[in-house]
């Protein structure tokens, strides 16, 4: 042992890194490879081949986790920038163009900060509460249909699952508030619990009318049911339901004007007061993921999901043209396009560079070429995108879905920039005295209408 120790001591730092790596690569690598190729691989392949659902599930979870982080970053940046603009400020403008990487850097900052646990706090609960909050937020992504076929799991009880998982986040908030050993946190957690539990009821009831109309709980089916013109969207059949859902969802996500749980001018930061570092980051992320989820839900349920507001095919039919149909199958194209891909960029770059070169005589040729190349990329990406939009229905659906969702995210941010906060008793009174009766009324009217129409 001493020999090994002494030899290890003689190694330089680089050697200390390389030798274990070599050991890993040379010894462990082949063993793992052989094991995988002979034992695990075939077994796994058989298993997955027999159950494609599992593949789909794993891919969906991976996709959802990967999607939630950039979505949160984009919303954070959007919130900073939009509220700043509404306040006649510029907002973040130092990191990246127009401060675009600001939230990314803020995320890094959160990662590097000290993770602090206050004295007297319940360590385990304090640590796991943010994880619970974040997890529930991310889990709701699973059933949201981003486009035709672009859905993690097409559950037939998707809506039920959504409300169930969404309601679980309050447990995390309550735990966070309780475990922090801070009265502001406790008040914030209790406020969150009271608020979310109260608003759960009108939130759920407001959708029941829609479920009666659609006849299904699957979000995918609800989305499909709204195809066609924008008049087919459920918001026009359920305006009251949409309004109630909008308000209740705002409260559910703890957004202004219902951000009682983290009312910074009253209870400092509510349940997040004692959190720092990445645990605070989780709470923070969950909040913004929630914003995206309620926007996505609003779009899915009431604003036509992935459907475009205008049915282009019907317009074309009216004019007398046949519907455009492009089938995109890259595999069937053969070798020819590969040569094209070699030639076309060069030629087009040169062609696009000519006007830049001619426009100003002092401009050196390489600058004109760079500009031409950039222009070419722009045009190419645009054309490809157009092709994809026409050719792949999921691409068109995704575009519309994301566009509409971020429009609603903008609305939530806009509201945050404008409104003061309501008081806790007004908040509860509003839920029980106004929203709940209105949701019930909506339900009864819808049910009655369905019976009358059917009979």
């Amino acid at each position, binding site marked *: 042992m001493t020999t090994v120790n002494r030899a290890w001591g003689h190694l330089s730092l680089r050697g200390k890194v390389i030798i274990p790596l070599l050991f890993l690569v040379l010894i462990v690598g082949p063993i793992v490879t052989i094991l995988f190729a002979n034992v695990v691989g075939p077994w796994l392949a058989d298993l997955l081949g027999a159950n494609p659902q599992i593949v789909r599930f794993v891919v969906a979870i991976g996709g959802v986790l990967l999607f939630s982080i950039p979505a949160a970053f984009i919303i954070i940046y959007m919130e900073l920038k939009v509220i700043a*603009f509404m306040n*006649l*400020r510029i907002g973040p403008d130092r990191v990246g163009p127009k401060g675009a990487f600001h939230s990314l850097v803020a995320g890094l900052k959160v990662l590097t900060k000290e993770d602090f646990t206050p004295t007297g706090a319940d360590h385990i609960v304090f640590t796991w509460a943010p994880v619970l909050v974040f997890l529930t937020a991310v889990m709701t992504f699973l059933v949201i249909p981003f486009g035709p076929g672009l859905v993690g799991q097409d559950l037939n009880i998707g809506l039920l699952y959504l409300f169930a998982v969404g309601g679980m986040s309050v447990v995390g908030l309550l735990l966070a508030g309780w475990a922090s050993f801070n009265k502001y946190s406790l008040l914030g957690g209790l406020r969150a619990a009271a608020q979310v539990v109260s608003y759960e009821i009108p939130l759920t009831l407001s959708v029941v009318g829609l479920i009666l109309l659609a006849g299904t709980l699957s979000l995918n089916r609800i989305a499909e049911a709204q195809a066609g013109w924008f008049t087919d969207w459920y918001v026009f059949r359920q305006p009251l339901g949409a309004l109630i859902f909008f308000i209740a969802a705002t409260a559910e996500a703890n957004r202004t004007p219902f951000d009682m749980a983290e009312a910074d001018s009253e209870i400092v930061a509510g349940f997040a007061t004692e959190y720092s570092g990445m645990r605070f980051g989780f709470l923070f992320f969950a909040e913004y993921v929630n914003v995206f989820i309620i926007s996505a839900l609003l779009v899915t349920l009431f604003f036509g999901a992935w459907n475009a507001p205008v049915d282009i095919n019907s317009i074309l039919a009216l004019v007398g043209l046949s519907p455009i149909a492009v089938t995109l199958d890259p595999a069937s194209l053969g070798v020819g396009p590969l040569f094209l891909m070699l030639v076309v960029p060069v030629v087009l770059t040169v062609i696009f560079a000519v006007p830049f070169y001619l426009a100003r005589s002092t401009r050196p040729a390489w600058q004109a070429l760079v500009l031409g190349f950039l222009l070419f990329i722009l045009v190419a990406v645009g054309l490809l995108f157009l092709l994809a939009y026409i050719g792949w229905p999921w691409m068109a659906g995704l575009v519309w879905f994301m566009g509409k969702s971020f429009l609603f995210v903008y609305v939530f941010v806009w*509201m945050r*920039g404008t409104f003061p906060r309501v008081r806790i008793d007004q908040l509860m009174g509003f839920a029980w005295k106004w929203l709940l009766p209105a949701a019930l009324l909506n339900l009864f009217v819808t049910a009655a209408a369905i019976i009358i129409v059917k009979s």
Partner: protein
Amino acid sequence: MSFIPGIGLVRGMSLTLRRFFQPKATIRWPEEKADVAPKFRGRLQLLYDEYGTLKCETCFQCAQACPIECIDMGGIDTKGRFHVHWGPPETYGERREESALRRSGRPVADPMYEHYESVDLVALDGILEAHDFDPKDMLAILEETQAAYGYLPVAALKHISRITGAWYATIYGTATYYRHLRLEPPAADTAAPAGEAQRGIEAGYRSALDAALGHVSGCPS
């Protein structure tokens, strides 16, 4: 609040949306600098002339005017005789102590000036009373003091400063500006309290100058 519920909220949101598209008020410091008013007085600095020497004339006015005593000044006067200083009493112990002790009703000796001879201040009190303790009549007060004592004892100047409230530096400035006022007894070359060396050199210069010009020494006109 209007009668239609929600109309106020909608108006508020329309206002913020309008602001969203308006030009922004941010000044992107440090790329852009805000305009400073011409009268802005934000920073103290000593100015230098083109030869790199200080422009400060040591008039003490800035130190006198500074309410929080962040400016202090000290030095020996041009003839090397007296310490003239202004500034926080931690540094010099000139005035603040008196003020505090005066309030507590106790007379106080000033350790800085203990080695100066003490003079009988009864005559000086009479002079001050005749002038109604008015610092505007400082020249007359000093002249009469000189008439009474034959010169201006430091203790008398300190007393004048304390009674009239005029800054000692101001009185000292007045006393040294007028050439007919003197701070030493007329024939007291041996009793110079401080700056002996400088005085000796200076006296040498002056006698040489007088000899060259044919003047009679020690008689300012």
